[in-house]
Protein backbone atom coordinates (compact mmCIF):
# COMPACT_ATOMS: atom_id res chain seq x y z
CA UNK A 1 0.00 0.00 0.00
CA UNK A 2 2.76 2.31 1.00
CA UNK A 3 4.68 1.64 -2.22
CA UNK A 4 1.55 2.44 -4.26
CA UNK A 5 1.26 5.77 -2.47
CA UNK A 6 4.85 6.55 -3.37
CA UNK A 7 4.31 5.58 -7.00
CA UNK A 8 1.19 7.70 -7.28
CA UNK A 9 2.98 10.61 -5.62
CA UNK A 10 5.87 10.23 -8.07
CA UNK A 11 3.47 10.08 -11.02
CA UNK A 12 1.69 13.24 -9.83
CA UNK A 13 5.04 14.96 -9.41
CA UNK A 14 6.11 14.00 -12.92
CA UNK A 15 2.81 15.20 -14.36
CA UNK A 16 3.12 18.47 -12.49
CA UNK A 17 6.61 18.97 -13.86
CA UNK A 18 5.52 18.18 -17.40
CA UNK A 19 2.68 20.71 -17.44
CA UNK A 20 4.83 23.59 -18.71
CA UNK A 21 6.16 21.39 -21.52
CA UNK A 22 2.67 20.68 -22.79
CA UNK A 23 1.38 24.17 -22.24
CA UNK A 24 0.66 26.16 -25.32
CA UNK A 25 3.31 28.75 -24.78
CA UNK A 26 3.20 31.48 -27.39
CA UNK A 27 6.38 31.33 -29.40
CA UNK A 28 8.55 34.19 -28.20
CA UNK A 29 10.32 34.29 -31.55
CA UNK A 30 7.39 36.25 -32.85
CA UNK A 31 8.03 38.98 -30.32
CA UNK A 32 11.77 39.12 -30.59
CA UNK A 33 12.25 40.50 -34.06
CA UNK A 34 10.80 43.95 -33.66
CA UNK A 35 12.93 46.94 -32.77
CA UNK A 36 11.67 49.92 -30.85
CA UNK A 37 10.68 52.91 -32.90
CA UNK A 38 9.91 56.45 -31.89
CA UNK A 39 7.04 56.63 -34.37
CA UNK A 40 3.60 56.16 -32.87
CA UNK A 41 0.32 56.05 -34.76
CA UNK A 42 -3.24 54.97 -34.31
CA UNK A 43 -4.47 51.59 -35.49
CA UNK A 44 -7.99 50.64 -36.34
CA UNK A 45 -9.37 47.11 -36.46
CA UNK A 46 -12.19 47.04 -38.93
CA UNK A 47 -14.44 43.97 -39.32
CA UNK A 48 -15.81 44.18 -42.88
CA UNK A 49 -18.63 41.97 -44.18
CA UNK A 50 -17.60 42.60 -47.77
CA UNK A 51 -13.94 41.75 -47.32
CA UNK A 52 -12.78 38.34 -48.52
CA UNK A 53 -9.30 38.46 -47.04
CA UNK A 54 -7.47 40.21 -44.22
CA UNK A 55 -5.88 43.44 -45.30
CA UNK A 56 -3.44 45.78 -43.59
CA UNK A 57 -3.62 49.33 -44.83
CA UNK A 58 -0.63 51.54 -44.12
CA UNK A 59 -0.69 55.28 -44.80
CA UNK A 60 2.00 56.22 -47.29
CA UNK A 61 3.11 59.10 -45.07
CA UNK A 62 3.79 56.65 -42.26
CA UNK A 63 5.69 54.33 -44.57
CA UNK A 64 7.86 57.22 -45.75
CA UNK A 65 8.50 58.18 -42.14
CA UNK A 66 9.43 54.62 -41.23
CA UNK A 67 11.73 54.29 -44.23
CA UNK A 68 13.46 57.51 -43.34
CA UNK A 69 14.08 56.41 -39.78
CA UNK A 70 15.08 52.82 -40.26
CA UNK A 71 18.35 51.92 -41.85
CA UNK A 72 17.38 48.91 -43.93
CA UNK A 73 20.63 47.02 -43.57
CA UNK A 74 20.78 47.62 -39.82
CA UNK A 75 17.21 46.41 -39.34
CA UNK A 76 17.86 43.25 -41.30
CA UNK A 77 21.05 42.41 -39.44
CA UNK A 78 19.41 43.10 -36.07
CA UNK A 79 16.54 40.83 -36.98
CA UNK A 80 18.99 38.15 -38.10
CA UNK A 81 20.91 38.39 -34.83
CA UNK A 82 17.71 38.16 -32.81
CA UNK A 83 16.62 35.10 -34.79
CA UNK A 84 20.02 33.50 -34.23
CA UNK A 85 19.87 34.15 -30.49
CA UNK A 86 16.34 33.08 -29.71
CA UNK A 87 15.67 30.34 -32.25
CA UNK A 88 16.49 26.80 -31.21
CA UNK A 89 17.43 24.28 -33.82
CA UNK A 90 16.68 20.56 -33.54
CA UNK A 91 20.06 19.64 -32.07
CA UNK A 92 19.71 22.24 -29.35
CA UNK A 93 16.25 21.00 -28.39
CA UNK A 94 17.42 17.38 -28.27
CA UNK A 95 20.50 18.21 -26.20
CA UNK A 96 18.51 20.42 -23.80
CA UNK A 97 16.03 17.57 -23.35
CA UNK A 98 18.77 15.02 -22.71
CA UNK A 99 20.42 17.24 -20.10
CA UNK A 100 17.12 18.00 -18.41
CA UNK A 101 16.50 14.25 -18.15
CA UNK A 102 19.98 13.71 -16.77
CA UNK A 103 19.46 16.54 -14.26
CA UNK A 104 16.21 14.99 -13.18
CA UNK A 105 17.77 11.53 -12.82
CA UNK A 106 20.82 12.86 -10.94
CA UNK A 107 18.59 14.95 -8.68
CA UNK A 108 16.47 11.90 -7.92
CA UNK A 109 19.53 9.84 -7.08
CA UNK A 110 20.76 12.61 -4.79
CA UNK A 111 17.40 12.74 -3.00
CA UNK A 112 17.31 8.98 -2.58
CA UNK A 113 20.89 8.87 -1.31
CA UNK A 114 20.33 11.64 1.20
CA UNK A 115 16.95 10.32 2.33
CA UNK A 116 18.22 8.89 5.56
CA UNK A 117 20.51 11.79 6.35
CA UNK A 118 19.52 14.73 8.48
CA UNK A 119 18.12 18.01 7.16
CA UNK A 120 15.34 16.42 5.14
CA UNK A 121 13.19 19.53 4.68
CA UNK A 122 16.07 21.58 3.25
CA UNK A 123 16.96 18.83 0.80
CA UNK A 124 13.37 18.32 -0.20
CA UNK A 125 13.12 22.06 -0.81
CA UNK A 126 16.23 21.96 -2.98
CA UNK A 127 14.77 19.00 -4.86
CA UNK A 128 11.57 20.88 -5.49
CA UNK A 129 13.61 23.89 -6.65
CA UNK A 130 15.50 21.67 -9.08
CA UNK A 131 12.22 20.24 -10.31
CA UNK A 132 10.86 23.74 -10.75
CA UNK A 133 13.96 24.63 -12.76
CA UNK A 134 13.40 21.58 -14.96
CA UNK A 135 9.76 22.60 -15.39
CA UNK A 136 10.67 26.18 -16.18
CA UNK A 137 13.25 25.17 -18.75
CA UNK A 138 10.85 22.62 -20.22
CA UNK A 139 8.41 25.51 -20.64
CA UNK A 140 10.78 27.34 -22.92
CA UNK A 141 11.50 24.37 -25.13
CA UNK A 142 8.51 25.60 -27.10
CA UNK A 143 6.51 22.39 -27.13
CA UNK A 144 3.74 24.25 -28.90
CA UNK A 145 0.50 22.41 -29.21
CA UNK A 146 -0.59 25.15 -31.59
CA UNK A 147 -3.36 27.69 -31.11
CA UNK A 148 -6.98 26.71 -31.75
CA UNK A 149 -8.31 27.13 -35.33
CA UNK A 150 -9.95 30.44 -34.47
CA UNK A 151 -6.52 32.03 -33.93
CA UNK A 152 -4.92 30.62 -37.06
CA UNK A 153 -6.43 33.03 -39.52
CA UNK A 154 -7.13 36.71 -39.39
CA UNK A 155 -10.89 37.09 -39.36
CA UNK A 156 -13.30 38.96 -37.13
CA UNK A 157 -13.41 35.88 -34.89
CA UNK A 158 -10.10 36.85 -33.35
CA UNK A 159 -11.95 39.64 -31.56
CA UNK A 160 -13.72 37.17 -29.30
CA UNK A 161 -12.35 36.74 -25.83
CA UNK A 162 -11.55 33.03 -26.19
CA UNK A 163 -8.89 33.77 -28.80
CA UNK A 164 -7.11 36.39 -26.75
CA UNK A 165 -4.75 34.11 -24.80
CA UNK A 166 -3.28 32.87 -28.08
CA UNK A 167 -3.15 36.00 -30.15
CA UNK A 168 -3.75 35.35 -33.82
CA UNK A 169 -1.75 34.96 -36.96
CA UNK A 170 -2.51 34.43 -40.59
CA UNK A 171 -1.96 35.80 -44.05
CA UNK A 172 -2.52 39.47 -44.55
CA UNK A 173 -2.47 41.55 -47.68
CA UNK A 174 -0.48 44.73 -47.18
CA UNK A 175 -1.58 47.85 -48.99
CA UNK A 176 -0.11 51.31 -48.94
CA UNK A 177 -2.77 53.97 -49.19
CA UNK A 178 -2.43 57.62 -50.09
CA UNK A 179 -5.83 58.41 -48.59
CA UNK A 180 -5.69 56.62 -45.24
CA UNK A 181 -4.74 58.46 -42.07
CA UNK A 182 -4.44 55.51 -39.71
CA UNK A 183 -3.12 51.98 -39.90
CA UNK A 184 -6.16 49.82 -40.52
CA UNK A 185 -6.45 46.07 -40.24
CA UNK A 186 -9.49 44.94 -42.18
CA UNK A 187 -10.87 41.65 -40.89
CA UNK A 188 -13.37 39.71 -42.95
CA UNK A 189 -16.51 38.97 -40.96
CA UNK A 190 -17.29 35.27 -40.92
CA UNK A 191 -20.23 33.48 -39.42
CA UNK A 192 -19.48 31.75 -36.18
CA UNK A 193 -21.51 28.71 -37.21
Amino acid at each position, binding site marked *: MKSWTKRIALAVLLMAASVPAMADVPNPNGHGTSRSSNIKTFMHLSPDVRATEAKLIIPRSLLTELSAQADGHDSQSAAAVTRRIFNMNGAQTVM*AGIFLSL*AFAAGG*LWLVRSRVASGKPARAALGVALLALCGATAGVTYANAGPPPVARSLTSRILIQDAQPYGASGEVKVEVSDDANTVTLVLPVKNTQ
Partner: protein
Amino acid sequence: MQNISGNIRLAPYRRTEWFAPRVAVSFLSFCLLAALLISWKPIQLSIATVFLFAGPHNWIEFRYFMEKMPARWGKSKLFYSVGLGGVGALTASYIALFSLGQSWYLNAAAWTVSIALWNTVMLVWLASLVHLRAKQTKRRDWSWAFAAGFALCALAWINPLLFSLALVYLHPLVALLFLDRELKRARPAWRKTYHLCLALLPLALVLMWSHLIHAQGLPVDDALSWRITQHAGAGILTGVSSRLLVATHVFLETIHYGVWLLLIPAIGMGGSVWETKRVPLASNRKGWPRAVRAALVCGLFVMLALWIGFAADYATTRDLYFTFAMAHVLAEAPFLIRLL
Protein backbone atom coordinates in the same frame (compact mmCIF):
# COMPACT_ATOMS: atom_id res chain seq x y z
CA MET B 1 31.93 26.75 35.86
CA GLN B 2 29.31 29.16 37.13
CA ASN B 3 31.94 31.86 37.43
CA ILE B 4 32.98 31.39 33.81
CA SER B 5 29.42 31.63 32.52
CA GLY B 6 28.86 34.65 34.73
CA ASN B 7 31.92 36.34 33.26
CA ILE B 8 30.74 35.65 29.76
CA ARG B 9 27.37 37.20 30.49
CA LEU B 10 28.92 40.20 32.15
CA ALA B 11 31.45 40.81 29.40
CA PRO B 12 30.65 44.17 27.76
CA TYR B 13 29.35 44.03 24.23
CA ARG B 14 32.03 45.23 21.86
CA ARG B 15 30.75 46.54 18.58
CA THR B 16 34.13 46.13 16.93
CA GLU B 17 34.09 42.37 17.51
CA TRP B 18 31.99 41.82 14.42
CA PHE B 19 31.67 45.21 12.81
CA ALA B 20 34.61 46.83 11.05
CA PRO B 21 33.45 50.34 10.09
CA ARG B 22 36.64 51.21 8.20
CA VAL B 23 36.22 48.17 5.97
CA ALA B 24 32.54 48.92 5.33
CA VAL B 25 33.07 52.61 4.59
CA SER B 26 36.07 51.95 2.31
CA PHE B 27 34.35 49.17 0.38
CA LEU B 28 31.06 50.99 -0.08
CA SER B 29 32.74 54.31 -0.93
CA PHE B 30 34.80 52.55 -3.57
CA CYS B 31 31.70 50.89 -5.04
CA LEU B 32 29.61 54.08 -5.08
CA LEU B 33 32.40 56.18 -6.56
CA ALA B 34 33.07 53.53 -9.20
CA ALA B 35 29.34 53.32 -10.04
CA LEU B 36 29.09 57.11 -10.44
CA LEU B 37 32.20 57.48 -12.58
CA ILE B 38 31.41 54.47 -14.75
CA SER B 39 27.82 55.59 -15.36
CA TRP B 40 29.23 58.90 -16.56
CA LYS B 41 31.90 57.58 -18.96
CA PRO B 42 31.45 53.82 -19.48
CA ILE B 43 33.45 53.35 -22.69
CA GLN B 44 36.38 55.48 -21.57
CA LEU B 45 36.57 53.75 -18.20
CA SER B 46 36.27 50.34 -19.83
CA ILE B 47 39.34 51.17 -21.92
CA ALA B 48 41.22 52.64 -18.97
CA THR B 49 40.51 49.86 -16.45
CA VAL B 50 41.43 47.06 -18.84
CA PHE B 51 44.58 48.91 -19.90
CA LEU B 52 45.73 49.58 -16.35
CA PHE B 53 44.55 46.62 -14.32
CA ALA B 54 43.98 43.59 -16.56
CA GLY B 55 47.63 42.48 -16.61
CA PRO B 56 48.47 43.26 -12.96
CA HIS B 57 45.37 41.48 -11.66
CA ASN B 58 46.29 38.39 -13.69
CA TRP B 59 49.78 38.46 -12.21
CA ILE B 60 48.38 38.73 -8.67
CA GLU B 61 46.01 35.84 -9.37
CA PHE B 62 48.91 33.78 -10.68
CA ARG B 63 50.90 34.59 -7.55
CA TYR B 64 47.90 33.72 -5.35
CA PHE B 65 47.33 30.38 -7.09
CA MET B 66 51.02 29.53 -6.63
CA GLU B 67 50.61 30.13 -2.91
CA LYS B 68 47.59 27.83 -2.80
CA MET B 69 49.21 25.07 -4.86
CA PRO B 70 50.66 22.32 -2.65
CA ALA B 71 54.21 21.16 -3.39
CA ARG B 72 53.09 17.55 -3.31
CA TRP B 73 49.59 16.75 -4.45
CA GLY B 74 49.29 13.51 -2.48
CA LYS B 75 45.64 12.48 -2.17
CA SER B 76 44.62 15.51 -4.23
CA LYS B 77 46.51 14.27 -7.27
CA LEU B 78 43.36 13.39 -9.21
CA PHE B 79 41.68 16.66 -8.24
CA TYR B 80 44.59 18.81 -9.44
CA SER B 81 45.15 16.68 -12.54
CA VAL B 82 41.51 17.06 -13.59
CA GLY B 83 41.50 20.72 -12.54
CA LEU B 84 44.67 21.89 -14.27
CA GLY B 85 44.21 19.50 -17.21
CA GLY B 86 40.72 20.92 -17.70
CA VAL B 87 42.05 24.48 -17.58
CA GLY B 88 44.57 23.64 -20.34
CA ALA B 89 42.18 21.71 -22.56
CA LEU B 90 39.29 24.14 -22.21
CA THR B 91 41.51 27.17 -22.81
CA ALA B 92 43.04 25.58 -25.92
CA SER B 93 39.63 24.66 -27.30
CA TYR B 94 38.30 28.15 -26.54
CA ILE B 95 41.21 29.76 -28.41
CA ALA B 96 40.66 27.37 -31.34
CA LEU B 97 36.96 28.19 -31.35
CA PHE B 98 37.69 31.92 -31.26
CA SER B 99 40.20 31.58 -34.13
CA LEU B 100 37.75 29.58 -36.26
CA GLY B 101 35.00 32.10 -35.53
CA GLN B 102 37.25 35.00 -36.51
CA SER B 103 38.33 33.34 -39.73
CA TRP B 104 34.72 32.60 -40.77
CA TYR B 105 35.26 28.83 -40.83
CA LEU B 106 32.18 28.49 -38.63
CA ASN B 107 28.77 29.68 -39.77
CA ALA B 108 26.30 31.07 -37.23
CA ALA B 109 24.62 27.73 -36.51
CA ALA B 110 27.92 25.85 -36.14
CA TRP B 111 29.25 28.61 -33.89
CA THR B 112 26.16 28.39 -31.63
CA VAL B 113 26.43 24.60 -31.34
CA SER B 114 30.20 24.84 -30.70
CA ILE B 115 29.69 27.37 -27.91
CA ALA B 116 26.98 25.17 -26.37
CA LEU B 117 29.29 22.16 -26.56
CA TRP B 118 32.15 24.09 -24.95
CA ASN B 119 29.85 25.30 -22.15
CA THR B 120 28.67 21.72 -21.60
CA VAL B 121 32.21 20.35 -21.28
CA MET B 122 33.05 23.17 -18.88
CA LEU B 123 30.00 22.49 -16.69
CA VAL B 124 30.67 18.75 -16.57
CA TRP B 125 34.29 19.57 -15.64
CA LEU B 126 33.10 21.83 -12.81
CA ALA B 127 30.67 19.21 -11.53
CA SER B 128 33.48 16.62 -11.63
CA LEU B 129 35.73 18.91 -9.59
CA VAL B 130 33.01 19.41 -6.98
CA HIS B 131 32.48 15.65 -6.90
CA LEU B 132 36.21 14.96 -6.45
CA ARG B 133 36.46 17.58 -3.71
CA ALA B 134 33.41 16.08 -1.98
CA LYS B 135 35.12 12.71 -1.93
CA GLN B 136 38.05 14.28 -0.08
CA THR B 137 36.00 16.09 2.53
CA LYS B 138 33.28 14.14 4.23
CA ARG B 139 31.85 17.16 5.99
CA ARG B 140 29.30 18.08 3.36
CA ASP B 141 27.07 16.29 0.90
CA TRP B 142 27.86 17.73 -2.51
CA SER B 143 26.26 14.97 -4.54
CA TRP B 144 23.79 17.51 -5.95
CA ALA B 145 26.59 18.89 -8.13
CA PHE B 146 25.84 16.73 -11.17
CA ALA B 147 22.10 17.42 -10.98
CA ALA B 148 22.76 21.17 -10.91
CA GLY B 149 25.46 20.81 -13.58
CA PHE B 150 23.16 18.94 -15.98
CA ALA B 151 20.34 21.44 -15.40
CA LEU B 152 22.76 24.24 -16.29
CA CYS B 153 23.86 22.24 -19.37
CA ALA B 154 20.23 22.23 -20.49
CA LEU B 155 20.13 26.01 -20.12
CA ALA B 156 23.41 26.27 -22.03
CA TRP B 157 21.82 24.39 -24.95
CA ILE B 158 18.54 26.29 -24.84
CA ASN B 159 20.30 29.59 -25.32
CA PRO B 160 24.10 29.24 -25.69
CA LEU B 161 24.82 32.90 -26.36
CA LEU B 162 22.82 34.17 -23.40
CA PHE B 163 24.47 31.54 -21.19
CA SER B 164 27.93 32.69 -22.30
CA LEU B 165 26.94 36.28 -21.65
CA ALA B 166 25.80 35.30 -18.15
CA LEU B 167 29.29 33.88 -17.54
CA VAL B 168 30.84 37.20 -18.63
CA TYR B 169 28.81 38.97 -15.96
CA LEU B 170 29.21 36.30 -13.27
CA HIS B 171 32.98 35.87 -13.53
CA PRO B 172 33.86 39.18 -11.79
CA LEU B 173 31.81 38.08 -8.79
CA VAL B 174 34.01 35.01 -8.25
CA ALA B 175 36.67 37.33 -6.78
CA LEU B 176 34.21 38.16 -4.00
CA LEU B 177 34.02 34.47 -3.09
CA PHE B 178 37.81 34.25 -2.92
CA LEU B 179 37.83 37.30 -0.65
CA ASP B 180 35.22 35.70 1.59
CA ARG B 181 37.40 32.59 1.95
CA GLU B 182 40.44 34.72 2.77
CA LEU B 183 38.51 36.71 5.35
CA LYS B 184 37.30 33.51 6.95
CA ARG B 185 40.89 32.36 7.23
CA ALA B 186 42.72 35.57 8.13
CA ARG B 187 40.18 38.16 9.35
CA PRO B 188 37.07 36.35 10.61
CA ALA B 189 36.01 39.43 12.60
CA TRP B 190 35.51 41.37 9.34
CA ARG B 191 33.39 38.73 7.67
CA LYS B 192 29.97 39.91 8.84
CA THR B 193 30.80 43.45 7.81
CA TYR B 194 31.87 42.12 4.43
CA HIS B 195 28.59 40.21 4.05
CA LEU B 196 26.74 43.40 4.89
CA CYS B 197 28.68 45.20 2.16
CA LEU B 198 27.85 42.42 -0.30
CA ALA B 199 24.17 42.74 0.58
CA LEU B 200 24.39 46.45 -0.25
CA LEU B 201 26.19 45.86 -3.55
CA PRO B 202 22.95 45.23 -5.49
CA LEU B 203 21.82 48.65 -4.27
CA ALA B 204 24.68 50.27 -6.17
CA LEU B 205 23.65 48.30 -9.25
CA VAL B 206 19.99 49.29 -8.88
CA LEU B 207 21.01 52.95 -8.53
CA MET B 208 23.10 52.64 -11.67
CA TRP B 209 20.33 50.90 -13.60
CA SER B 210 17.66 53.37 -12.52
CA HIS B 211 19.87 56.14 -13.83
CA LEU B 212 20.73 54.41 -17.12
CA ILE B 213 17.65 52.37 -17.98
CA HIS B 214 16.28 55.00 -20.37
CA ALA B 215 19.68 56.28 -21.47
CA GLN B 216 20.43 56.38 -25.16
CA GLY B 217 22.68 53.67 -26.51
CA LEU B 218 26.38 54.38 -26.74
CA PRO B 219 27.59 55.74 -30.07
CA VAL B 220 29.53 53.00 -31.86
CA ASP B 221 31.42 55.12 -34.34
CA ASP B 222 34.62 53.09 -34.18
CA ALA B 223 35.51 49.40 -34.05
CA LEU B 224 36.69 49.56 -30.43
CA SER B 225 33.46 51.04 -29.08
CA TRP B 226 31.50 48.47 -31.07
CA ARG B 227 33.68 45.67 -29.67
CA ILE B 228 33.20 46.90 -26.10
CA THR B 229 29.41 47.09 -26.46
CA GLN B 230 29.34 43.61 -28.05
CA HIS B 231 31.43 42.21 -25.19
CA ALA B 232 28.84 43.60 -22.75
CA GLY B 233 26.05 41.88 -24.70
CA ALA B 234 24.58 44.75 -26.71
CA GLY B 235 24.27 42.44 -29.72
CA ILE B 236 22.29 39.91 -27.69
CA LEU B 237 20.17 42.06 -25.37
CA THR B 238 19.07 44.44 -28.10
CA GLY B 239 16.22 45.83 -26.02
CA VAL B 240 18.53 47.09 -23.26
CA SER B 241 20.50 50.32 -23.46
CA SER B 242 24.09 49.54 -24.43
CA ARG B 243 25.22 52.27 -22.00
CA LEU B 244 23.62 50.34 -19.14
CA LEU B 245 25.18 47.06 -20.26
CA VAL B 246 28.69 48.46 -20.66
CA ALA B 247 28.47 50.37 -17.37
CA THR B 248 27.31 47.27 -15.49
CA HIS B 249 30.07 45.14 -16.96
CA VAL B 250 32.78 47.72 -16.27
CA PHE B 251 31.48 48.21 -12.71
CA LEU B 252 31.67 44.49 -11.98
CA GLU B 253 35.11 44.24 -13.61
CA THR B 254 36.32 47.19 -11.53
CA ILE B 255 35.22 45.45 -8.33
CA HIS B 256 36.94 42.30 -9.58
CA TYR B 257 40.20 44.20 -10.19
CA GLY B 258 39.89 46.03 -6.86
CA VAL B 259 39.47 42.79 -4.93
CA TRP B 260 42.41 41.07 -6.64
CA LEU B 261 44.77 44.04 -6.63
CA LEU B 262 44.03 45.55 -3.21
CA LEU B 263 42.08 43.37 -0.83
CA ILE B 264 43.39 39.87 -1.47
CA PRO B 265 47.09 40.90 -1.40
CA ALA B 266 46.45 42.87 1.80
CA ILE B 267 44.50 40.12 3.55
CA GLY B 268 45.47 36.84 1.95
CA MET B 269 49.12 37.44 1.11
CA GLY B 270 50.24 39.29 4.20
CA GLY B 271 50.86 42.46 2.19
CA SER B 272 53.93 41.13 0.39
CA VAL B 273 53.60 39.52 -2.99
CA TRP B 274 57.36 39.08 -3.39
CA GLU B 275 57.85 36.84 -0.36
CA THR B 276 58.02 33.26 -1.58
CA LYS B 277 58.30 31.73 1.88
CA ARG B 278 54.59 31.11 1.92
CA VAL B 279 54.65 29.51 -1.53
CA PRO B 280 54.85 25.75 -0.91
CA LEU B 281 56.32 25.14 -4.37
CA ALA B 282 59.27 27.37 -3.40
CA SER B 283 59.65 26.76 0.33
CA ASN B 284 59.24 22.99 0.35
CA ARG B 285 62.40 20.97 0.77
CA LYS B 286 61.74 19.27 -2.56
CA GLY B 287 60.32 22.38 -4.18
CA TRP B 288 61.58 24.54 -7.04
CA PRO B 289 62.29 28.02 -5.62
CA ARG B 290 64.16 29.20 -8.73
CA ALA B 291 61.43 28.03 -11.06
CA VAL B 292 58.83 29.83 -8.95
CA ARG B 293 60.81 33.08 -9.02
CA ALA B 294 61.42 32.69 -12.76
CA ALA B 295 57.69 32.14 -13.35
CA LEU B 296 56.86 35.28 -11.37
CA VAL B 297 59.42 37.33 -13.32
CA CYS B 298 58.09 35.89 -16.62
CA GLY B 299 54.63 36.96 -15.48
CA LEU B 300 55.93 40.49 -15.04
CA PHE B 301 57.31 40.49 -18.58
CA VAL B 302 53.98 39.27 -19.94
CA MET B 303 52.29 42.11 -18.06
CA LEU B 304 54.73 44.57 -19.60
CA ALA B 305 54.19 43.08 -23.07
CA LEU B 306 50.45 43.48 -22.57
CA TRP B 307 50.86 47.17 -21.78
CA ILE B 308 53.04 47.66 -24.85
CA GLY B 309 50.43 45.81 -26.93
CA PHE B 310 47.62 47.97 -25.55
CA ALA B 311 49.61 51.11 -26.32
CA ALA B 312 50.39 49.96 -29.87
CA ASP B 313 47.00 48.50 -30.90
CA TYR B 314 44.46 48.58 -28.12
CA ALA B 315 41.55 46.91 -29.97
CA THR B 316 43.53 43.88 -31.21
CA THR B 317 45.35 43.41 -27.91
CA ARG B 318 42.06 43.63 -26.03
CA ASP B 319 40.55 40.93 -28.25
CA LEU B 320 43.58 38.70 -27.78
CA TYR B 321 43.70 39.38 -24.06
CA PHE B 322 40.07 38.41 -23.46
CA THR B 323 40.59 35.22 -25.46
CA PHE B 324 43.73 34.06 -23.65
CA ALA B 325 42.41 35.36 -20.30
CA MET B 326 39.93 32.49 -20.39
CA ALA B 327 42.75 30.53 -18.74
CA HIS B 328 42.56 32.63 -15.56
CA VAL B 329 38.76 32.46 -15.52
CA LEU B 330 38.93 28.67 -15.63
CA ALA B 331 41.87 28.42 -13.21
CA GLU B 332 39.81 30.15 -10.54
CA ALA B 333 37.43 27.17 -10.42
CA PRO B 334 39.69 24.41 -9.02
CA PHE B 335 41.33 26.75 -6.50
CA LEU B 336 37.99 28.09 -5.29
CA ILE B 337 36.46 24.62 -5.02
CA ARG B 338 39.57 23.56 -3.12
CA LEU B 339 39.02 26.40 -0.63
CA LEU B 340 35.39 25.43 0.06
